[in-house]
């Protein structure tokens, strides 16, 4: 089953398809963000508690008026406002979304405004019900465009933004002097390098290098180690 897509229609008539992220990628981004939020909260509380208690970490007496405001409030604010603040500041992304290769867009494919992003987060109150985001997860699984209630309210979609190095690939491929097909093949092989068997990737790398650099003698190619082959291919893409 192919992933659902939305079409970004442009005035030039060259439309772009954006792939909508599925429940797995969405959950992956959320789990990363949740860990960052927890670490921020615990890190702040631990650090300020240490300062507050003079290194002992345990409160010896009743805390004074500033305790809650200094130790707990900033940590809780960071935990609760993490998503709305970062999504607005990073234009529909968060560190978790970036790592999972997704970003938020409007139904037209544009960057959502601050109002929509805040509204999306207010509806977490519903999506997180009754526990572990059951409502949100269910709507993501059941809806065609994999959206939670917050996305329905704000008119946002989570789309795949995996290839964050797309622009640099275009630039690198252009500078290398290779044909677009050759650059494509090299990048494909480099991306799949860890997943391929050693013998297979070495064979593929030697075949590719033999075509791109016909001046290299076959014996010299055969002597190159896996690491050398990889470095050589990578160098081809970044060559000025």
């Amino acid at each position, binding site marked *: 089953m192919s992933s659902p897509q939305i079409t970004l229609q442009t005035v030039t008539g060259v439309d772009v398809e954006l792939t909508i992220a599925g429940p797995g990628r969405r959950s992956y981004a959320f789990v990363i963000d949740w860990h960052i939020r927890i670490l921020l909260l615990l890190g702040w509380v631990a650090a300020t508690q240490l300062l507050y208690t003079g290194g002992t970490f345990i409160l010896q007496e009743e805390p004074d008026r500033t305790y809650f405001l200094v130790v707990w409030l900033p940590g809780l604010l960071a935990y609760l406002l993490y998503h709305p603040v970062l999504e607005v500041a990073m234009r529909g992304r968060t560190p978790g979304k970036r790592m999972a290769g997704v970003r938020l867009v409007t139904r037209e494919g544009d960057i959502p405004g601050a109002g929509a992003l805040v509204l999306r987060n207010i509806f977490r109150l519903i999506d997180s019900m009754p526990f572990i985001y059951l409502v949100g997860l269910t709507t993501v699984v059941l809806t065609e465009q994999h959206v939670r209630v917050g996305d329905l309210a704000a*008119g946002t979609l989570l789309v795949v933004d995996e290839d964050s190095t797309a622009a640099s690939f*275009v630039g690198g491929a252009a500078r290398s002097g290779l044909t677009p097909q050759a650059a494509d093949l090299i990048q494909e092989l480099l991306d799949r390098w860890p997943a391929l068997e050693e013998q297979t990737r070495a064979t593929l790398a030697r075949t590719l290098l033999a075509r791109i650099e016909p001046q290299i003698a076959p014996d010299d190619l055969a002597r190159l180690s896996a690491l050398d082959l990889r470095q050589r291919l990578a160098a081809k893409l970044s060559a000025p």
Partner: protein
Amino acid sequence: MSDNRGLQSWATSRIAAWSDLGTILDALERKRDHTVAEALRAIELYRALGRDLSIVRRTLPEGRMSRALAQSYARLHAVIYRKPHNWRDRLRLLFREEIPQVVRELRPQIQFVALLFALSAGAGWWLVASYPELIGLLADEKMINGVEQGRLWTEGLFNVVPSSVLSVSILANNIAVSMFAFVVGIFFGLGTFYIIATNGLMLGALFAFTHQHGMAGELLKFVLAHGVVELSVICLAGAAGMMLGEALIRPTHATRRESFQHAAAKAGKLLLLCAMLLVVCGFIEGYLSPDPDFPMLNRAIVGFGFWFVMLAALTGRLFGRRPEKREAATQDHGKE
């Protein structure tokens, strides 16, 4: 082979445009106030990328180059078509025009929710006045014991919890309740109905219970300074929630999803003002309300004075909106 060579020479000719694409896109995305020259350069790049993408798609439809160019093109499109970022004008428009407009549209829902709240409070009063044992369902044992011993639960609040902490916890709780009253409107308005009715019922019941022990005046004294606006704001959030429910029951757009999205975007604007009002309420409730030395008259002045400020904010006049000229409108109507 010649196709390949042609493509290669064409790609080579585009090196200058593509080599710094990543850097250019990053810079364009990061900046919000571009100069005219930068904007023109971006549009030129957008057109050129569109042409390049179109060529690459014809020759390498499934290739990485095609995907990469499409992605860069989409990023540039988003930069060019994003709304102008002038937050001062945006806020001015929001508070002067948009929120008053939403309030006008929400008038029937506001009236309905206010009536529901008043009726529920009346019902709560009647229930506890008629069946005093029912207070056990609405208040906790500590609270009930305290009142029975002639001590209101708000007494000593000033000394037990610091005002700053009290304010923050109260305002956070109130904002959460208001937002909850709004979002549960998604259950076709029934969630909001339940939240408003429960809150009204509890308020009426608590006043009836304290009245039975001769302490209703004390409770009123505590509530007066912050409660007038706080309860009004909860009703406003409830009305916004009702709007969501109504959008799902009687869609105003082609689909229920569109109708819901439209209603949520509209009602969400009002929530921003509600949250701001609740922050002030939280500080009044944390600093003034628990202070036993703060006289009743002053509480009434603060409570109703702030309520008028709220009205001015809801009509936009607090932010410089001019009153609508009814005479002019009547004249125009007469001409027609």
